[in-house]
């Protein structure tokens, strides 16, 4: 609001000038005119009232120094207080926050259709009372985040807060006490997002699903369960319980965005094992290195890498015999890929892992991938605080044994990945040129290529193999529902993780305490169900990754969800098979 502000500056400056004028006069007249020495008697001089004058001047110096100190403190609070941690924390509790948040109008967040009814965040008026609304509610919580004057903001509300509070026009900035923020259009399709959430939520387990739109790797949907209604954080005690749980038992916390492995409040949470879906990576490396003619044998007693006593077996003790790469992808043969991984070797795997930004010799702590996203709007730092996933990592250092490498080649062992990273892997394979494109929430932005991963030819070969998985392999039954209308390619995964057991209050269950007082907690095996892939198979337009914690085999839980996601995406016009009916609308009708 310009005018009162200008008036105030006039007021302040003119007041200051007037006082400086008077102050100058006060300085000129600081001493009364010297009187003639009426009394030259020294002793009287020492004793008389005039002798106090020096001390009175001292008093004046004292006052002026105090006033300067006061001014110094005022300057401190204006300029430097912000650097204090305590002060910044106190700022979160500032009563002004509530007034600002209740009277401001931040920008709306629209989905890629740009329609208000599909908006992710908008304002609603109930009989003149205006409230900020999250129409998708818990279905998009991990995307939209939340906003509260006490607990701050998370998700997009925080990542894009700069943009959403930036004045919509100069005129508005000049006339309004709190300017209206700019709207933002993101790449999400809220209908697909809702569908993705409903699908994974129906499993009743913690799960995540990501759909990317090629070729720009724009995020169409990113859902995570469990979730909660963004407005419910107004309930202070519920929120406190939730934050406490997020701190002590992140594995069961709804604050974790399982698609990214981050907290919706900001910060890294945890990783998943990608399981057999990771074989797509190893196969891609083999194809790009043209090591495609290898045949390995899959025996009943498993494959035992050199220098290791333990054998790698196949799921359910399956025996695939001596097979080639194509067949191994189709049946998801562990022993084949373990041997292939060793054949490809540590160095080659490392080189290709680096191309996709995976860490290959990680230290203990989780580091975040600050360059993961293609960011146009929003403050880079805030954005990464919210959305940068923990950097995907393997252990290909010299400390890793052959057994470790063999395990990692089948997506177990030291493989630490996020659902989003696997979706990006699928998108990279699905892309026409096999290059690694940064995912983004921006819509219509130019695709940002981070670098080459594999050759276009290798990518096409791999796509054919993954298509076989869907048509004749592990995922064929799940994809039968598509009825051949839409082709797709993919890879199932079934990953074993050891996870702590939590009681109802979110505390870890104690198994036993040994004689040294060391506490052992109960753990259990979690078999995560995975599916990554793309559709349509010949010229992919979307790529996706689905993960359901403790969902059993990938073909049983994750793959059917992926199939339904493809159906929904097709009905929305994102997947158009070249072989099928040409126009978008007809394609949508076609699969119904």
């Amino acid at each position: 609001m310009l005018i009162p502000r200008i008036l105030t500056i006039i007021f302040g400056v003119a007041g200051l000038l007037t006082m400086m004028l008077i102050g100058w006069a006060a300085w000129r007249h600081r001493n009364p005119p010297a009187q003639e020495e009426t009394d030259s008697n020294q002793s009287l001089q020492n004793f008389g009232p005039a002798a106090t004058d020096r001390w009175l001047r001292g008093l004046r110096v004292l006052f002026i120094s105090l006033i300067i100190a006061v001014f110094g403190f005022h300057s401190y609070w204006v300029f430097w207080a912000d650097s204090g941690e305590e002060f910044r924390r106190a700022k979160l509790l500032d009563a002004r926050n509530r007034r600002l948040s209740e009277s401001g109008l931040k920008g709306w967040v629209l989905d890629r259709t740009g329609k208000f009814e599909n908006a992710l965040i908008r304002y609603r008026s109930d009989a003149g009372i205006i409230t900020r609304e999250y129409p998708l509610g818990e279905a998009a919580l991990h995307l939209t985040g939340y906003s509260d004057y006490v607990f701050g903001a998370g998700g997009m509300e925080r990542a894009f807060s700069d943009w959403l509070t930036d004045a919509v026009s100069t005129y508005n900035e000049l006339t309004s006490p709190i300017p209206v923020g700019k709207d933002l259009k993101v790449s999400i399709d809220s209908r697909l997002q809702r569908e993705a959430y409903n699908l994974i939520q129906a499993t009743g387990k913690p799960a995540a699903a990501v759909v990317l739109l090629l070729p720009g790797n724009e995020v169409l949907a990113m859902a995570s369960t469990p979730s909660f209604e963004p407005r419910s954080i107004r309930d202070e005690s519920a929120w406190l319980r939730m934050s406490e749980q997020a701190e002590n038992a992140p594995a069961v916390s709804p604050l974790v965005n399982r698609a990214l492995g981050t907290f919706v409040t900001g910060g890294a949470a945890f990783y998943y094992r990608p399981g057999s879906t990771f074989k797509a990576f190893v196969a891609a490396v083999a194809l790009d290195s043209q090591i495609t003619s290898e045949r390995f044998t899959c025996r009943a007693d498993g494959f035992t890498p050199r220098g290791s006593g333990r054998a790698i077996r196949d799921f359910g003790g399956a025996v695939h015999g001596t097979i080639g790469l194509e067949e191994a992808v189709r049946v998801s043969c562990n022993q084949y890929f373990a041997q292939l991984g060793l054949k490809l070797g540590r160095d080659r795997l490392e080189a290709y892992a680096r191309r996709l930004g995976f860490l290959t010799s990680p230290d203990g702590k989780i580091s975040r991938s600050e360059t993961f996203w293609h960011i146009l709007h929003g403050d880079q730092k805030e954005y990464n605080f919210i959305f940068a996933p923990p950097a995907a990592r393997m252990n290909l250092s010299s400390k890793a044994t052959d057994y470790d490498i063999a395990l990692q080649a089948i997506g177990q062992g030291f493989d630490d990945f996020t659902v989003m990273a696997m979706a990006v892997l699928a998108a990279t394979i699905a892309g026409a040129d096999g290059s690694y494109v940064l995912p983004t929430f921006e819509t219509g932005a130019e695709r940002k290529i981070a670098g080459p991963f594999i050759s276009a030819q290798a990518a096409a070969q791999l796509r054919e193999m993954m298509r076989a998985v869907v048509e004749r392999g592990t995922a064929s039954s799940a994809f039968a529902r598509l009825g051949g209308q839409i082709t797709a390619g993919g890879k199932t995964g079934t990953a074993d993780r050891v996870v702590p057991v939590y009681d109802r209050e979110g505390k870890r269950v104690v198994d036993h305490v040994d004689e040294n007082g060391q506490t052992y907690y109960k753990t259990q095996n979690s078999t995560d169900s995975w599916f990554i892939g793309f559709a349509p198979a010949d010229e992919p337009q979307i790529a996706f990754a689905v993960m359901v914690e403790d969902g059993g085999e990938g073909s049983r839980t994750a793959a059917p969800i992926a199939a339904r996601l493809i159906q929904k995406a097709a009905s929305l016009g994102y997947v158009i098979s070249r072989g099928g009916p040409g126009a978008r609308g007809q394609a949508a009708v076609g699969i119904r």
Partner: protein
Amino acid sequence: MEKTKSRFNRTSPSLHLMAFVIIFGLSVVGYVAVIWSGNIRGYSPSKVVAARDLALFIPILAVFFWLMRRQKYRGEIMLLTAAVFLFAVGSLMQYRLFSDPEYGARGGDRAKARDAKAQTIRLLNIRTAYDDEKKTYMFGGPDRVPEVPATSDLPVYEYTIGDILMSVNTYIPLAALLAFVAAFQIFKNDSKLLWLQRHALVIGLVTLLPFMAIVLFFSREGKFLGQTTPWEGVKILFLVSFAGLLADTYRHLRRTRWGLPPARYLLPFIVIAAMPIVPFFALSDFGQMLVFLGVYLMLYIVAVRKSTQLVYAVLLVSIVFGTFYTASSVASGVGLPRRVYFRFYQWTHTWEPPPPETWWWKPDYERYLQAKQLSPDPSDERQISQRNAEAWFDKVLQQSQGLLGVHEGGVTGEGLGRGFPETVPISDSDFIYAAIGEEAGLLGGLALLIAIGVFAFAGIAISLGADDMFTKLLAAGFTAFVCFQAIINIGGVLRLLPMTGITLPFVSHGGWSLITSFAMLGILLALSHRNAVARTIAENQPQFVPVRS
């Protein structure tokens, strides 16, 4: 030899008249800003009240002309200008605060006012910045955006002419100007001054007894009937009494051994110096105690002018401060009032709650739980620390909000009426500097500080120009009173010093405080006038001119 000094060595009245006009103009600008921002923030500040405030310049100018024309005032006018500036800024800030329905209101009304303000800003923004498509989506049509909610029915302090005629805010400044005139009339008179000096001890005692009686029998939580503090005026009487006694005995107090004056003179003197401290202690008004002690100490040092005693005084002050400072960081301590502990702890640890079982904090913590009807589970440490932090932040709300406001204000301020000083409790009186810092920024604050500096300079200059010890001490004392009180107030707001809860002279909202401040101003001007007259007489003595034949 040629005389270089002028006969009337003072700044010219026309300079100050011009300053008054500028200050008046500034005020008009300020009131326009407040009304303007009020209207877009969901309340309409009363123009009648603004006119009333601006009309107060008429009696101020009347007093100015009365001084110049009727009294043939020859002293220094700077003090008056500085005080008028402070007063104008203070009235403006009070107008801004009291016009805000959220500020005066309590309980439900407060929340209602807050919501109404928030909705108004939103609706105005929607009207002007949302396109038709959005308006249609939200309200069903571009022209169906609801009307801005009416806030004029929310209670504010004063609004209409009727309110003004009934309001003490109209009469207190007039009373203050009358007190100024009366004080001037009394203190310009030599015989009255002489009488005051002669009866210094009696004045002190006569002031103390009824004051003590009122304090003991009629005061509630540091306030007289109906939230007033009529004893503000005793500051003048006590200071006159102290200055009179000091002027009588300072020669004896100078004769020191080991830096200490003879007990025969010192002990009675200490008794007299302690006179005002006792009732203010009983009122737990530590701010006033601090001001009295500080001013008395300053006057004593200035009058006695012994370096050893200055060292002793500095040591004494550091020991007292150091004791409180260290005591405030330890959890336990005895013999000191809880409130002192609290204030010191708040000063050093504003945003760190003390443990809930701390002896001086526990009762407040429990009172908070009771008021909010909370009963945290005693075994759940997390919950307890959460509640404790809440209770603490509620308790230090004023300081915390004030500082955050000053920070928000930045250099040029949020703009008058644009900030949120309504979130700072009692920001019209104790924390008015925080409100100024938030809305007028560092610039406004600096103008205010310079005005206080002018007051200090010109006041001490009057003291320097005085011929006798009594008026010297009076002038220095009243100047110190105003300036020291101002510094303690602002220092408390800015965490330079512990918060004490005294007012900012001339600026804060407060009846007796304003009247007393103007009376002190009158005394200072009277003393200045007296000096100038005495000097003129001395300069105009007939001189023998040798006649050359």
